[in-house]
């Protein structure tokens, strides 16, 4: 088992953003998360990565994460990306990746080697010296994934990674996610609204609504679940 969330809850004032949630993510799998806006998906990511305090327990490879600050969770092997790219705008692509390797990685591998490997892996060779602020959206997302990979994670959290991309860019991104999972052996948790993408990509799919679990299981079962159709997919989904 890679990640185990037990009875986790997060409340903002009177709003329960995540409500007594339980689920497990197995090592090596791609685990999809979907649900309507306000379902608590990003809040869940913020809890796992130490951005929010919460009640309950989140354990990663047996180690309790509740109470750890974000930087220590990163160093424990969990990296994430954001829907809107969070990069150091005045730094180049390679320096953004260097920041991940420099601060987030616990490995003794030479930094320069890590940076070169990752730039090649995500396909940003021609942009290595370009400032992050000047990149187009796809390249910003790739640079952010590169910085996350530079921390040498065992679990990667992707928050709506294909939002705003065109069809060919989506195809390119999905290929990269497969390669991260298959070639690097990194477990992936992915939030996405495109159900077709999630059903193709993930081995397990979790549907949330109002912070609660609606359904969890293999995608082909989840997409046929009546509660999921009612609260999220609608009757005429394909």
């Amino acid at each position, binding site marked *: 088992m890679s990640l185990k969330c037990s009875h986790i809850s997060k409340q903002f004032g009177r709003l329960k953003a995540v409500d007594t949630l339980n689920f497990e993510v197995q090592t090596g799998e791609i685990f999809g998360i979907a649900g309507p806006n306000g379902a608590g998906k990003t809040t869940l990511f913020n809890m796992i*990565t*130490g*951005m929010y305090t919460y009640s309950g327990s989140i354990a990663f490879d047996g180690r309790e994460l509740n109470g750890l*600050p*974000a*930087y*220590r969770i*990163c*160093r424990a092997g969990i*990296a*994430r990306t*954001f829907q809107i790219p*969070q*990069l*150091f*705008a*005045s*730094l180049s692509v390679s320096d953004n990746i260097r*920041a*991940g390797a*420099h*601060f*987030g*990685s616990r490995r003794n591998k030479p930094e320069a080697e890590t940076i070169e490997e990752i730039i090649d892996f995500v396909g940003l060779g021609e942009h290595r010296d370009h400032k992050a602020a000047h990149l187009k959206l796809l390249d910003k997302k790739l640079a952010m994934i590169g*910085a*996350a990979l*530079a*921390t040498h994670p065992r679990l990667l959290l992707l928050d709506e990674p294909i939002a705003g991309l065109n069809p060919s860019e989506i195809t390119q991104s999905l290929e990269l996610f497969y390669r991260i999972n298959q070639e690097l052996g990194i477990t992936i948790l992915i939030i996405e609204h495109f159900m077709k993408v999630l059903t193709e990509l993930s081995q397990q799919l979790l549907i949330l609504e109002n912070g609660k679990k609606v359904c969890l299981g293999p995608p082909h079962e989840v997409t046929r679940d009546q509660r999921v159709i009612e609260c999220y997919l609608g009757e005429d989904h394909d």
Partner: protein
Amino acid sequence: MYELIDVIISGVTNGSVYAMMAVGLSLVYGVTKVFNFAYGSLYTLGGYLAFTFFGCGFGYPLVILLTLVSLYLAGLLIERVIIRPLRRREDWEMLAMMVTLGLAIFLDNLYQVVYGPYVKSLPIMFSGNLQLAGFMLSIQDLVIFGIAVLVMGGFMIFLNTHRLGMAIEAVAQDMTGAQIVGIPKDRVFGFTFAISTVLAGFGGILLAPKYFITPFGGWDILVKAWVITALGGMGSVRGSLYAAFLLGIIEALIGWQFGLTWILFAWFAVLLGTLIVRPQGLFGTWG
């Protein structure tokens, strides 16, 4: 002509110390987005600590060393005990600004109780003048200028080459992104606050032989550091450097031509002009 150049040299000397202090204020704002209202009081703290260590019979080198170490620890303590607990709250930036204002009032009154209301001074570091190309240069001024430039140069090298300098830049640009790549935000905040306290207090040591130390004397310095950071661009260290020298020279010229009472007026006029013409400052950006 000679008098004008003397005045400009004096302005550059003061500008170098202002630059050092403004860099500290700008650094804290750049990283935490909090304006530190206690900055002037930390300047005064440097003067009073040095005054206390002189009272123990120590010479300048040891006094400076002890004062800087004390300032660093004081900065760490203030951040850890007063600022950090506020960061658990969503509106912590505004709260932190109000708390630093309270801290300034507390410290100034503490100085008044401990050291009394009368001015204190530090001995001159180096007396005498140096004649160079027909100009009489105060050795004290030259030493102050040299120290301030060395401190700033060293600090810039540190920011650009050290691991911690890279972390400071990362947190200043994107706090969330920085944490996510494994940068310990709290440690960066603590270090930034401590270093900025050292820079403010070191300014207090360097200027005390010339302008004396009084319990409420830090407010003028706060205003000056504020105007410098506003003119340079809030959070821009490079902008603060240029603005400090420019305003140091303007201050010296105004004092020479119109008298010392017009100096603060000139600073406020520059602030007003900046806010009207270029509110983001020389090197600042919006957002």
